[in-house]
């Protein structure tokens, strides 16, 4: 009888130790993430001590050497770039997803799907290199009078980068639809195209939206590949092939020249905070869209 109690005591001790370990790890991770957000937030908010919020968000003049910190060009370019790359990627990704899920024979799908999943893992700097050495001179040749740098090559590269993400998530969404939807539609006399367009895609919409937002998140946060092809001048772009800067490249461009505690440095942290907020917002939208799909 003494053996039993000793054994159960050891078990109880092991149990509480493990629980402590797991809780401790989870708390450590949360602590790190929260302190990161808090630090960036605190540094960013310090900007408003020297620079009015209106100037930061509405002025187009970014001349740090003369204490003018107007980040509107960066915000606009980020917005434009993300929109354009998503607009380029979504039609292709959606068509690819529909093809792989509904039209392709099994052999083709077995071959293509792993290939596409592989593309997600390509380091973005590779895309940047190809963009800089191949795409930019090509665009300069196609559009004489421009240098080839600008939002257009960046959007093209980003579209290629986020295409596998959107495609794989959308394909999973379409494939997980119940078979009866398709069967019912066909039984009612709809053609394959009508079924896909009017029944399946709307039904898979929450999943497809999740994929699009994931791709958007990746496009917004992309730094190096964009830095190599966008031209990096701190001004509003006048065309798609005009040199400009986005939030991420503005940070990577100016960080080495700033000192911790100066207004310039704080302005960069504020830009990082804006990026953080945008990604958090996108994640919230994904969760809301996911909830909707569960309900249906």
């Amino acid at each position: 009888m003494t053996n039993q109690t000793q054994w159960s005591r050891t078990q109880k001790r092991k149990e509480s130790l493990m629980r402590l370990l797991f809780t401790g790890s989870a708390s450590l991770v949360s602590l790190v993430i929260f302190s990161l957000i808090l630090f960036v937030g605190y540094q960013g908010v310090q900007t408003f001590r020297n620079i009015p919020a209106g100037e930061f968000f509405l002025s187009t003049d970014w001349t740090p050497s003369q204490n003018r910190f107007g980040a509107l060009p960066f915000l606009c370019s980020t917005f434009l770039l993300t929109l354009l790359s998503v607009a380029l990627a979504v039609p292709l990704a959606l068509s690819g997803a529909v093809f792989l899920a509904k039209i392709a024979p099994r052999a083709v799908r077995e071959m293509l799907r792993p290939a596409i999943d592989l593309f997600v893992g390509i380091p973005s700097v590779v895309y940047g290199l190809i963009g800089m050495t191949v795409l930019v001179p090509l665009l300069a040749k196609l559009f004489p009078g421009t240098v080839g740098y600008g939002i257009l090559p960046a959007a093209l590269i980003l579209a290629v980068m986020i295409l596998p993400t959107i495609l794989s998530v959308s394909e999973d969404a379409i494939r997980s639809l119940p078979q009866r939807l398709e069967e019912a539609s066909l039984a009612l006399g709809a053609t394959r195209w009508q079924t896909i367009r009017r029944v399946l895609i709307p039904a898979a919409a929450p999943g497809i939206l999740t994929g699009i937002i994931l791709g958007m998140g990746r496009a917004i946060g992309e730094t190096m590949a964009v830095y190599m092809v966008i031209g990096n001048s701190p001004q509003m772009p006048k065309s798609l092939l005009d040199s400009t800067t986005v939030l991420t490249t503005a940070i990577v461009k100016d960080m080495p020249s700033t000192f911790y505690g100066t207004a310039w440095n704080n302005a960069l942290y504020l830009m990082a905070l804006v990026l953080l907020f945008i990604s958090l917002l996108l994640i919230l939208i994904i969760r809301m869209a996911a909830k909707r799909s569960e309900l249906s």
Partner: protein
Amino acid sequence: MFKGKQITTLLLAAAMSLGLLAGCGQSKDSGASAGAGGNTGADNGGAKQEQQLSGTVTASGSTALAPLVKQAAADFMDKNPKVTVNVTGGGSGTGLKNVADGTSDIGNSDVAAEGEFKDKGLVDHVVAIAPFAIITNNDVGIDNLSKQQAADIFTGKITNWKDIPGGKDMKITVVHRPASSGSRRLVQQIVLDGKEFTKEGIEQAESGAMKTAVASTSGAVGYVDIPFVDQTVKAVKFDGVAFSKETVRSGAYKLYGVEHMYTKGEPAGAVKAFLDFIMSKDFQERRVEELKFLPASLLSK
């Protein structure tokens, strides 16, 4: 809690990784002691000291000066096999920042440390003169730019090559360097008299990238130091004066920078030996000119 075999394995793994870490720490320790020994032994002097030098020297900053420092590092490491010299870029501003907060032993800069660096205790060592040139793409066809014309181009007043006598009807694309670049600050001081660069144009991170961008972009204009100039770009005359050693010495060619290597406080040990090596007569007369820089003593004559 763990069985006997598991404990033994864990202990062995821990012992081996400790051994690995100890090996990593070795050179740094001997570097410090050799540094201290080198300092006291310096009074005794002699080549014997060089054989005992070991340690690591880190230098960062100007990408214009980098080719010279890298060559010096290679030569120095040949003579002192126990020393490791690491040279990185990042621009003059980054170099100054790194040496001020202790990240690098040496900060390379094309411009003198000013303003916020005055009270950081940086000691200056002038190692070379780096002549600069305004470069254009080979299709521009301009041979000479006056200071006013260059200033107008870089501030954005002139945007087409046809506004320069002898130029074709081609849009001017200005290639910039980042704000931390010493080359950029130098051109701003000498050519623009402190005015701001235009915001138009494209930006490249370092000297080599600047040259490549100007070489491959039609109608481009930029600035880089002479060692980077080759036949893929055209170096124009400045105020009618072409670059040469004589024109810099006589003061006719105004576009040059004094290359500084800063240390925090007086250097010691391997760092001091490295700096002494760069400023030695042998290195200055041979390598410096070989790499198309000019010796530091050129202007003090």
